[in-house]
């Protein structure tokens, strides 16, 4: 799991660089963002409408 987290962090760093240079994100980038958000929720608990 640690390996996966490190890979995600690396990808997110690359994305931030892409964003700052105004480049569009790829489908794979969106998949990583979705994954990071799902992992974040799995630690904090799933969202409700509140």
């Amino acid at each position, binding site marked *: 799991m640690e390996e996966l987290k490190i*890979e995600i962090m690396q990808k997110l760093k690359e994305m931030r660089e892409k964003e700052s240079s105004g480049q569009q994100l790829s489908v794979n980038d969106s998949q990583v963002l979705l994954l990071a958000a799902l992992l974040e929720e799995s630690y904090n608990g799933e969202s409700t409408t509140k």
Partner: protein
Amino acid sequence: MEKVLQNKEVFTIDPNEKTICILQLTRIGDLIQTLQSVRNLRDQFPRMNLKLVARKSFAMPMLDILKELFNEVHLLSLSDIINPSSLTDTTTNISRLVKNINTSHNDLLVNLSFSKPSGYLASLINADHKMGINRDSLAEQQIPDKWSQFIFSNIMTGDQNPFALVDIFNNIFGVKNYSTAPSTVNYNSKTVTIHPFSSSDKKNWNTNKWSEIIYKLLKNSDDIEINIIGSKAERNIATALCNTPILKSFTHRLNNYVGTTTITESLDIIKQSRLFIGHDSMASHLASLAQRTSLIIALGTVRPHETSPYSEGNYILVPKSSCFPCTPDTLCQFKQCHADIPYQLVYSMAHTLFKTGEIDSSVLEKDNSIFHLNSVLIYKTYFNEHAMLKFDNLLQSRSSIKEVMRQLYRITWLFYLSGKEEKNSFIDLTAESANELSKIMSNLQHLYELSEFGQKYSRYILEEISSETPQLQKIKEFSQKIDEIEELSKLVLKTAPLLSPFIHYFSTVRGNLNGKNIVELTEQTFLSFSDTSVVISVIYELSEKTLAEYRLKTNKTVSSPVTEI
């Protein structure tokens, strides 16, 4: 539905031929409320292709019910997706899920959940049109439609939303409530089903109060039996409740189903019961699906106007505690709202409902001490002329300023977002709420002036752009003024926090403008400030009339703001 093209050719759009993909990643309660709204969509368009994307953990327990309405159900589960040692494998699994969702063409994607993952997933799903939160190619958040902007600004950030969640979903889909029959008492049954649990300790009483209610119901009526329902996680608490010494002699009339039934079986148990009692939770939504009369105790973070059982004829007990409703992150040691609802009152109402099937204000006042009634609001649900859920205040108690504003917002939002008017009687003010309302009117004037300035500066930008020699510096200066106006509007929040629904809504609107160039964006900014002025004028006039009526009734003078909007 007919649409006329520019060349006058008329073609017909049949919504029955369209596919709507609905994204709902939140909990079972939210999923049931989604289902209640989608039922209206299905009633109106029986052949429409409906897809649902939901979390596996929440959708699996009610898959049978979901499959009755949806043509396809796609399940998202982190544990199914993730390969802890390979990001490539994990993203391939995500690709597979998304590919399945995208297999047949989606005409419309509606994201009804407002979480981060749902926004990213929405960006991966292909659809001609998208509603609700999604992300653009730069991963920027977008909320394109009005009602989703309303949810984002009013529900996610405050507690003054006056509408049932199902009604908001109905408005997003553009359907009316067609299929909700009133909840009724089942006189063929002698059982009362109780769900004394919820998803958080803040939202439910401890077992002592429930054991008192169950004891009194069983002791005072020989013909009553009690069912207790709940999930496996609640099994230990339920066992402790059933083993309470005072309930020992009634075990033959107490059926503990906790942790032993599926959601479909729980739904059936509620259907077979005479009535349902519980907190605001997944089970209370099941009770509305079962169309069984419910008595709901709203505590902690619950917002009764938003999530009470969506059917007519349910009774909702709401504490008058000043801190109610709180938020999930509020620390609370004393749980004042738990103490403010007396168990004697719940017993008395449950007993009356069991015997007669109905409660009115005279019965409440006859059967209960004024001390027990004083700390609660008691509502009965009904549908208004637009088939939207509304609350009847059974105790006719005068409204706090928060309640006054909620009612004024309901009228205003309904008019602004849907062009609907609702029949309402004048709001009964207390001296305190009258004074507060007067102060709020002064702040409305400030907001009105700010929105007028907003219109002025956006017009200046448009004029500068259309001039023969547009000066970039001037455009920048005007644009800065608009930013200042946004900041000043937020300052008004500090003195009038009850105006946050307006301020947050219109700042959300301006954060989601959809223009291709500076002219289009500025035009939309102008229109949004113009809309702000209109909405403020409406609520100002409503406040003015409410205060005038109060003065007439009481012969009291309330300081009123000098200027007219």
